[in-house]
């Protein structure tokens, strides 16, 4: 089942909202209290030695969609069982990478829609997409290049894409680092190599 079309979003104009540590812990505790019977926790995911991308996706079948501008802390996302593509992709990257999976976070910019984030898993030759969390094939197969992934993601929306960027995210710093960007109108042979990230001159630490 495809996720319903996402609503339009105006670029953020005001100051970004952040989740204070105490709020994170409070929400996580509340979530654990309310959903303790069935909500998976970050610790369970991290400590599960048999966690695969497919098994990871299976935990999110009943999650709801809710657009949140900043990426939610993992515990909050899992406890609330609500979130967006960024929350899901970043969590997948965070949980699967330590288990040996070569994961990559990719932002695909679609025409007239908010950018869509997915987590590509090289070993599975597929990407994890929050929109596929409640369908049989939770992993969408795709080639490894940004262009292939962006084309596949855009097709799932019946939309055109303009560019796709690889990025990383740190729960600790709560910031994204941007990597290679592929532009649809560029010749494919000019596409930058995937996987490279760089520290922008505009980054403020």
């Amino acid at each position, binding site marked *: 089942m495809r996720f319903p079309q996402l609503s339009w979003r105006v670029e953020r104009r005001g100051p*970004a909202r952040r989740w204070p540590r105490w709020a994170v812990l409070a929400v996580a505790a509340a979530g654990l209290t309310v959903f303790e019977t069935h909500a998976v926790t970050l610790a369970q995911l991290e400590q599960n030695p048999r966690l695969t991308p497919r098994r990871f996706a299976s935990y999110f079948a009943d999650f709801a969609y809710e657009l949140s501008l900043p990426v939610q802390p993992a515990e909050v996302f899992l406890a609330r069982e609500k979130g967006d593509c960024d929350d899901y992709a970043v969590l997948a990257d965070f949980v699967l990478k330590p288990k040996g999976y070569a994961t990559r976070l990719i932002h695909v910019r679609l025409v007239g829609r908010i950018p869509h984030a997915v987590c590509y898993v090289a070993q599975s030759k597929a990407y994890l997409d929050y929109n596929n969390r409640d369908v049989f094939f939770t992993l969408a197969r795709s080639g490894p290049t940004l262009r292939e992934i962006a084309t596949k993601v855009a097709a799932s929306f019946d939309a055109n894409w303009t560019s796709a960027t690889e990025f990383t995210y740190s729960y600790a710093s709560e*910031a994204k680092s941007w990597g290679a960007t592929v532009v*649809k*109108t560029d010749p494919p042979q000019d596409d930058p190599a995937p996987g490279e990230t760089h520290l922008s001159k*505009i980054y*403020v630490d």
Partner: protein
Amino acid sequence: MSTDSPGFVGADGRTFRRLLVLLLLVLAVLAFVVVESLRNLDRSIAASDWVNHTHAVISEADAIDANLAAAEGDLRTYLLTGEQRDRDTCQETFSDLAGHVDVAKALTRAAPTQYQQVLQIESLLAQRASLARELLRARAGGPGPTVAGLLAGDAGGAAAHEISRRLLALKDEQNELLAARDTAAYLQAQTTRWTVLTGTGLDILLLVAAAWLIRDDLAARRRAAAALQEANDRLETRVRERTAELAAINAQLVAQNLEDRWSHQALEHQLRYSQLIINSISDLVLVVTKALNISRLNPAVTRLTGLTAADLVDQPLARIVRLTRERGDTAPLRFDPIAQAFADGRDLRSHPAILTDHLGRTTPVRLDAFPLRDRDKVVGGVIILQPAAAPPPG
């Protein structure tokens, strides 16, 4: 009877070839339209991609402008509050700003002029980020004169205005590009429309021509069928007339045959009657040809001479009859009186003659000869022999 004449078969082949040519033309036009439409579709998609691309650049320029304003606001908020939360927010906003700049750089990578513009904007933004880093570091030590000094040095917001001005210039350029690319997309769509319409129109014309050809061929077939039917009708009429004529002739022949049979029977009857008359005569009657050969004889001849018809027919009369002079005159005749009489066309009556039988015995007889005429021409004669009367004793 075959309904297709050789000429019509030839016409069939010609029509088929013409139809084949027309259909091949239709297919060629169709293939051209499909190929050209697909190519135009690809061009339209490419044009659409470029329009989207331009929108994306404009969108990134707007996002940079908005994120810069947000980042500057977050920075000042942190400078006022000194809260870690506000510092994190400021850092995240600058991170987002960096992301938008990276995307803008990537989007303009293929256009050197625009790329240079973005690089200049990035350079100005880097200066702003550098100032932000210094302010953050200074604020970490408390709201002191360093922060105030740094802010004072940045008074007026000239750098931010310069960035906004350059972004505006970039957007203006992108809007011009957008108009040009939109025009290209529109023209591409128009080309596709005209290609499809022209191809469809041409195909319709060709199909109409094919339909006309088929209609013409059907009309020719109908004409040929009508001509054939007319010829058949004429032939049947002639056959009927000829049959009627033959039937009439046949009826006439049947009637004539009947009349002939009746006539033949009458002739046979007449002949038999004549034969009966001749046969009943006790005198010897012989029918001779003009050359005096015997052609018929009556039974009295056979009785008296002992010779049958088979013996005498086609034999000269002289074989059994010899003319003599009058009694006592034994000199031979110097000419044949019968031949002379026939030549003269007169009768010869009671002429003495000697009849010789099959044993060579002779009998004196009196001979009468009558020429047979056919249209005043003597064709033979009838010879009648009567035994001569015995001479008076004396």
